[in-house]
C-alpha cells in the first residue's frame, strides 16, 4: 500500500476550504495549518498565468525528517504516511529544518505537528478531511499500488509534476498540470 494524493491545478480555485476543513478536523491551533494554498503567478502582462496548488506534507518515500529525528518520534506507518509520536518528540526542530516543503511546524504544546493524511479517518474507511470537502473535487486520494484507485486513475490520464524532485525526497503529492 502506498497512499498518495493528486491535486488538479487546473480545477483548484484556491478557496481554502481544504485548509479550514483540516484545521477543524485535526484541532489545529489558531494561526497554524497543516495544509495551505500556493498561488504561483508567472509571466508578464498581458501573458500572465496562475497556478493554484493545495499543498501539505508530501509523505516522502525518502523522508529526510524521519532520517534526522534523534528519538524516532518521526516515523513511517503503513501506507507510507509520515507521522510524529507526540510523547517521543523533544521539539529539537531538526525535522522542521530538514523539510524542503516547510510542511512541519512546532505546535504551541511543544511537539512537532504535521499532516497525517487523516489516518484516523482512513481507518474508518473515510477519505481525508481536505478531499471530502473540496468543492471542485480537485483532490484525488488513494493507494498508488491499486490501479483502480482515484489517484491512480487521475495520474494515468494526465501529465503531472512533483515539487522539488531535485531534493531527492521522492514526494507523494502529484500536481496535475
Amino acid at each position, binding site marked *: 500500500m502506498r497512499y498518495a494524493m493528486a491535486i488538479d491545478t487546473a480545477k483548484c480555485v484556491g478557496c481554502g476550504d481544504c485548509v479550514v476543513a483540516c484545521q477543524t478536523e485535526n484541532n489545529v491551533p489558531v494561526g497554524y495549518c497543516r495544509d495551505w494554498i500556493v*498561488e504561483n503567478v*508567472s509571466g508578464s502582462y498581458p501573458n500572465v498565468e496562475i497556478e493554484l496548488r493545495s499543498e501539505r506534507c508530501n509523505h516522502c518515500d525518502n523522508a529526510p525528517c524521519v532520517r*534526522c529525528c534523534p528519538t524516532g518520534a518521526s516515523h513511517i506507518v503503513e501506507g507510507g504516511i509520515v507521522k510524529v509520536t507526540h510523547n517521543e518528540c523533544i521539539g529539537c526542530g531538526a525535522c*522542521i529544518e*530538514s523539510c524542503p516543503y516547510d510542511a512541519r511546524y512546532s505546535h504551541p504544546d511543544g*511537539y512537532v505537528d504535521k499532516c497525517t493524511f487523516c489516518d484516523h479517518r482512513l481507518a474508518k474507511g473515510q477519505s481525508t478531511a481536505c478531499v471530502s470537502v473540496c468543492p471542485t473535487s480537485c483532490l484525488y486520494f488513494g493507494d498508488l499500488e491499486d490501479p483502480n484507485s482515484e489517484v491512480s486513475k487521475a495520474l494515468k490520464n494526465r501529465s503531472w509534476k512533483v515539487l522539488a524532485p531535485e531534493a531527492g525526497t521522492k514526494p507523494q503529492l502529484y500536481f496535475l498540470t
Partner: protein
Amino acid sequence: MKEELFVSGRHIPNIDPYLSIWHWEIPVYLFLGGLAAGIMFFAGLFLVLGREKEMETTVKRAPFLVPFALVLGLLALFLDLKHQLYFWRLYTTIRIESPMSWGAWTLMLITPLSIVWAAGYIKEAIPGWDWRFGILKQFEALVIKYRKHLAWAMMGLSLILGVYTGILLSAFNARPLWNTSILGPLFLVSGLSTGLALTMWMSKSHSERKLLSKIDIVLIGVELFLIIHLLMGFLAAGMVQVEAAQLFLGGEFTVSFWVFVIIMGLAFPVTLEILELFGYKIPIWIPSLLILFGGLMFRMIMVEAGQITRFLY
C-alpha cells in the same frame, strides 16, 4: 519571465515568511562544543606525545574549562528544545542516520570523560586538595595510571564532537547553504582553532604559547582555504546553492560575514600571531579574543543564513 508566489492561509510562527526555528541557542552550543573539542584534542595530543611538562596549560589547566563549556552548551541545547520534559527520549534510542542522535551520545561519553580528566589534575592545580573519601582516591589513582588511554579516547571523541558540530548542519539537504560535506572539516578546524586561542590566552609560558600559536596559524590557514572552497563549491553547483553563496557575496550577510568572520575573526588575528613570531610584542588576549569572537560569529551567521536558503518551486 517574472514569477511571483503567494501563500495564503499560512503565517506560521518561526516558519513564515522565513524559517527561523533555531535562534542563538544552537550556534552557542556548536561554538562551545567546538571549543571544548579543541581544548581536549590538544590536551590529549600533548600528553600522548609526552610533553605535559612544557605544555602545562594545554594538558593540565585549560581542560578545567571543558566541563563548564560542555555543560553550558548542553544547557543552551536544552533551552532550544520545545518539548523539554521529553529530552530523555534522546537516550532511549540510538539512531544511526540522525546526526543529532550521534551528538547526544558523544556528549554523553565526552562530558564525564572531561570531568574525569580535570579531576586527575586537581591536586596539581589546588595544592592541599583532599578527596576525603577513599573510593575517590582510588579512582584518582586509576585515572592517573590510565591517563594515556584516556588521552587517546579523548582525542578520538573530540574529533567526532568537532566534526559533528558541522555535520549537524550539513546533513540537511533542504537548506542549500548547509548541505555541503566541507562543513564538517570546516567546523572541526574552526573549533580546534578556538580551543587553541583560549589555551594560549591562559598560558603563561612563552615557549608553550609560541608552539600553540604556530599550530593555530596553520589551522587558520586551513580554515580560510576551506571557506574559499565552500564558496567555490556553491558557485559551481545548482541554482539554489549559487543563491546561498550570494548571501555572502553581495547579499544580506556580506558585511557581517566578511567583517566579523573573515577579517576580525581570522585574517587580523592570524596577522598578529605572525607578527608575534617575528618578535613584535602583542598582548596575547587580542588575537585570542578575536578568534573566539570570530568562531562564535561564524556559527551565528551560518545558522541564521542557512535557514533562509531553500529549494524553490
